[in-house]
């Protein structure tokens, strides 16, 4: 069957032998890079936690006084006798370094302190309300991806008019403040058209508008990056080669170019997840949807620092986990990274 008698000469066979040991080295470096990634992930969480610790302990004013005033809703000087049990309970008189290690120890066991306002462990306060916020965050992310993939595959490098209109809309969407978009959606779809409940529950009906509120601006952001990549992908030689073997336009878009173009969008999503999670506050507040948003706004207004700090640490954890997932997704889509 061998039509063509030319063979790779000795010059060409040497990478072949070299490739086996190289493979083992790849696995080794792969493990090592996984190790460094996990380490740096823990580092980020540690740094974020330390930051919140310092903010809480180095705050101007006496911490016990602050706490006591919070408890009673008063603002006044406190006597030593009043402060003593508080200091005793929270160990505020211990040296800072002792408090710091206690804080880290608590953190490792999932103890984020006690809310000044609600007298409940912060972890419980968060745990009670986290589920709807997580649902909202991920729905928004999915909506954003769905919108921008459909729009880009449909319009990029096709008709010049449609593709410029679409990219103009992307720029518009990316610049829209979530609160404004949310208000408009609420006024149009809930108040005027009555298609959705004004006060959103946790059901599907109450989810769509808040998710669009967060998803549309994100779709604009993602779309801008992905479009640029998609357009340059369509001009790459491999896209031309695919056409040359008889593939149609849609095939080239879906089977070759799309995979290349989503990569920067994936990176952006990792970063966006933390941001989405905190922006959920806005959507929840517009649509009076249960979730962490209400907890956070109340905590900020009542200066309930442990709760705010607890949420900051939680978002840092989400950010870090999201970025580890991004790394995994990235290597699945672009296997070249594993080996280089």
């Amino acid at each position, binding site marked *: *069957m*061998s*039509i*063509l*008698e*030319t*063979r*790779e*000469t000795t*010059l*060409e*066979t040497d*990478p*072949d032998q070299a*490739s086996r040991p190289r493979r083992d*080295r790849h696995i080794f*470096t792969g493990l090592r890079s996984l190790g460094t990634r996990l380490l740096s992930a823990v580092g980020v969480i540690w740094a974020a936690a330390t930051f919140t610790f310092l903010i809480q302990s180095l705050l101007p004013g006496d911490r016990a006084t602050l706490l006591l005033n919070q408890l009673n809703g008063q603002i006044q000087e406190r006597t030593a006798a009043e402060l003593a049990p508080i200091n005793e309970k929270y160990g505020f008189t211990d040296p800072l370094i002792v408090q710091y290690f206690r804080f880290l120890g608590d953190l490792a066991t999932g103890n984020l302190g006690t809310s000044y306002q609600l007298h409940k462990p912060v972890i419980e306060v968060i745990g009670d309300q986290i589920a709807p916020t997580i649902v909202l965050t991920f729905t928004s992310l999915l909506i954003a991806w769905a919108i921008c993939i459909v729009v880009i595959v449909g319009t990029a490098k096709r008709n*010049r008019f449609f593709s410029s209109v679409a990219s103009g809309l992307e720029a518009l969407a990316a610049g829209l403040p979530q609160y404004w978009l949310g208000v408009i959606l609420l006024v149009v779809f809930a108040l005027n058209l009555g298609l959705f409940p004004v006060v959103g529950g946790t059901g599907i009906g109450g989810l769509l508008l808040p998710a669009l509120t967060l998803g549309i601006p994100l779709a604009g952001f993602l779309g801008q990056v992905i479009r640029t990549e998609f357009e340059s992908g369509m001009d*790459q*030689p*491999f896209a*031309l*080669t*695919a*056409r*040359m*073997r*008889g*593939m*149609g336009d849609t*095939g080239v878009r879906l*089977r*070759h170019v799309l*995979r*290349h173009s989503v990569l920067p969008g994936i990176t952006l999503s990792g970063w966006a997840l933390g941001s989405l999670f905190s922006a959920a506050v806005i959507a929840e507040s517009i649509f009076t949807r249960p979730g962490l948003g209400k907890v956070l706004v109340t905590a900020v207004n009542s200066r309930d620092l442990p709760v705010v700090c607890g949420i900051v640490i939680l978002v840092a954890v989400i950010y870090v986990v999201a970025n580890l997932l991004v790394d995994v997704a990235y290597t699945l*889509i*672009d*296997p*070249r990274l594993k*080996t*280089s």
Partner: protein
Amino acid sequence: MTVLVEKPVSAPAASANRTLLAVHALNVSFAVGTGRHQKINHVVKNVSLELSAGRCLAIVGESGSGKSVTARTLVGLPGRNAIIEATRLEVANRNALTLSERLWRQVRGKDIGFILQDALVSLDPLRPVGKEIEEALRLHGWGNAASRRRKAIELLDSVGVPQPEMRSRQRPDELSGGLRQRALIASAIALDPALVIADEPTTALDVTVQAQVLDLLAAMKARGTGIILISHDLSVVSRLADDVAVMRGGAIVEQGPVREVLGNPQHEYTRALLDAVPSAHTKGTPLTKEGRSGIIATSDRARRVRAANAGPVLEARGLGKSYDGPDGVRRKVVHDVSFNLAAGETLGIVGESGSGKSTTAKLAPDTGEVLLDGQPWSSLSTSQRRPRRRRVTVVYQDPLSSFDPRWNAERILVDALDHRDFSTAQTRSNRVAELAGQVGLQVEHLEKHPLQLSGGQRQRLAIARALAPEPEVIVLDEAVSALDVSVQAQVLDLLTNLQAQLGLSYLFISHDLGVIHHMSDRVLVMKDGKAVEQGTADQIFNEPAHPYTQELLASLPRLEITENTTRSINA
């Protein structure tokens, strides 16, 4: 005049005389801009071609000659906004002028295979090469998944890829240049198309690998496949093609059998193109007509320089250099390289990609030392070396990135002058004008930004900048590699003249053996970071001692024309 008969191609090429391609008076133009600003660019003008089975037609030309657009038009993919006109355009026995996109898709890959330049980017970099070959089969409804998988491995085997099963699971970046180019060819010929179009199929490859790929294409031709070869390289063309069409500015200037066209060129442009190719026998003679008329005898100054310096200007002793790879492993890329460069002499350093030739030319080793005029150079600290730096200047392969984008040509040259020697604006502008004159740049070029200059003009500007400090040594790192052959010829002539005039010493780095032979007094051959052989150009090219040098020279395609030729072949 022509009657078009639809003859579907079903059986593989049987008769040798079967016509695969008939193009008559093809015009391709592009509409640029919209509305009032719209402009029509005529890219291909009145081109007629013909090809029958088992033959190879080469289309040669420099960049912008329209050769690639012609090739792409033959598969119905000339690009956006293209306007195609022809009295006849018959490809694989179909009237290409009336084919719908749907029908074209049945033709592409099945009746016509297309091979692009660099398999690293021409195959999907994220997918295993086997998948790409299977895709070509799947698109035309060939077999089922399992049989396609088997066929892909068979195809890889047939184009000479060892261990095809393992290779089929690897991505282009995991394969060597030669293997991935073979995989690309396998994907193009998966359905055994009668016609294969190869657009610069060997351009990105090292000479030894290039020779293997050309053999592969020749074997396909021998089996009855018709090949259209698009190339800028006349020696590649002479090795594979039966007929050749020379294109310039969108039109064919000369066309006919290779022997006649290259052996006895009728058109002035073909002759100029042939003369421009540097090689053994062009040594010591200019490559361009302008060069011949403006030949400069060795000047007094140059003679003085040579006489005054008995010893070497530049001396390298046991250079070594290592780099940390991305995986943290330290790799030695240059091992123990030594050479001397005498005043007014050119030392050529030749080697394939990754041989360490450019690293050597940086003259910044970890071990060993470089002496300039017998004084230490590489061992000096950055600040100690600074006052002497102007005695060795560099011209890079990509001049554009070596210019600050904010500056125009004049500002770039002024910056290169020593402001102690040229303290007034007047002396500076005189010197800039002198430099521009030396390299053949016009006054109006000086006001332009590098982006607005052509490739040749940019390289002239880079040479002027290198001349500005009046150096003794100029390092030319692949300085002509990115240029078209006729522009390359002009720049090489310029360099030769400047050397004769100013007594410069050149350290000339190139992968192109012809250029090296043409330019060098002495040659250093590098492989895998080591100097394998060193000697005068004649010694190296006529009596190579090292097996690697012999192999390099053997794989070099030459202009193999015997009839009526003024050129002799150096075997």
